[in-house]
């Protein structure tokens, strides 16, 4: 059990590193939150093992990294985790297409939550460009889940 936690924690760190890599503004529009995807996978594959302190720590780091309000990423991450907690078995029953749709919706909610939480402060324009990261995430999902989720399910 603890070895999985170590593996997942290092995956999370790797994801965070991946997000910190500078990209050109063209690519940036389509860049996705790897940390979010890994946390979703963690929560789905070994439920109730996700250290909440780690979520808080990572969320705060992402807030400082992206200069958003302290707590914005913590809130949006925990919102997604609340949404999928208790849904692990149902999620596993889904076909891969259904899973991709679910991931699309989850990432979209995450983006929307982040936008809404800074609504009054930044008065950013609401634009439909929110769907791009969600789309890319859902396209990446099958590969990630095959590599990571399937592996851990076999160990169980």
């Amino acid at each position, binding site marked *: 059990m603890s070895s999985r936690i170590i593996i997942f924690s290092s995956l999370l760190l790797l994801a965070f590193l991946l997000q910190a890599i500078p990209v050109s503004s063209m690519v940036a529009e389509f860049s996705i939150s790897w940390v979010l995807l890994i946390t979703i996978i963690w929560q789905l594959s070994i439920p109730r093992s996700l250290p*909440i302190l780690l979520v808080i720590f990572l969320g705060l780091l992402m807030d400082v990294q992206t200069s958003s309000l302290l707590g914005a990423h913590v809130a949006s991450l925990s919102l997604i985790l609340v949404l999928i907690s208790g849904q692990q078995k149902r999620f596993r029953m889904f076909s891969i297409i259904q899973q991709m749709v679910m991931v699309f919706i989850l990432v979209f909610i995450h983006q929307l939550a982040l936008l809404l939480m800074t609504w009054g402060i930044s008065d950013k324009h609401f634009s439909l460009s929110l769907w791009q990261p969600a789309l890319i995430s859902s396209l990446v999902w099958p590969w990630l889940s095959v590599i990571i989720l399937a592996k851990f399910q076999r160990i169980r």
Partner: protein
Amino acid sequence: MQGFRLSIIFLLSMLLMWADENTQLLKTPRYYFAYVLQPVNQMALLPSVIGNWFELSAQSHDTLMQQNSELKTRNLVLDQRIQRLISLETENIELRELLGASERIDDSVLSTEIITVDEDPISQQIMINRGGSDKVFVGQPVLDAKGLMGQVVEVQPNRSRVLLIADSNHEIPVQVNRNGVRAIAVGTGQIDQLKLIYVPDTADIKQGDLLVSSGLGMRYPAGYPVAEVTEVKHFAGQAYARVSAKPSAALGQSRQFLLVFNQDAAHVPDKSLWQEKP
């Protein structure tokens, strides 16, 4: 059970956000928290550093020679312009003395380089590689070789965040270089477009006009190029014209910038010159 704990965290983080927005308490922790991020960011920069190194070392001798001679010629031209500038500056100071206006001091600058572009598709912000340890301050103007880029909005120990003039949250007071008509240039969120607001329908402003910073906002130094007018539209019955402009600075391409250190960014002439006597 976990869902419950997560909900508590959700509420607590809401509280945290409120505190961050409405109090100054979290500013210092945030600054020091950025130290934790430093190794991560340095590692993340590795690919681009390696890429740049390869690009540099893969250039042929001929290309470098050619580049070198081009730079030398350019340098010569610039040197010649500076000579003229010096005499113009002294002349300007003398004229200002005659007018009784305060003397305009040349700004001191610090060069800096871009690190990342904001991944958020709706904001126009970049990170640069200078921070609190280089005495960068919030509100500091940033220029590139061709014009104003934007201003510093957040300072971390070794990097800072710059809000570009094209961001939809950004506004800068400008004036037409040709005749001094004043307006406010607002970002549209698109990197290559600004719009001017509160331009009277009858104002003398044409396509191709250069807009320079007026320095009236007390934030940007006066006289730097900001944008070039690309389109002026008049509407019958409307009080204001719709004016679009294209930023002079290469917002999407520049990699090298200058941070301007100038305490009284706006040059405001002596009060007796513009205030009516009672």
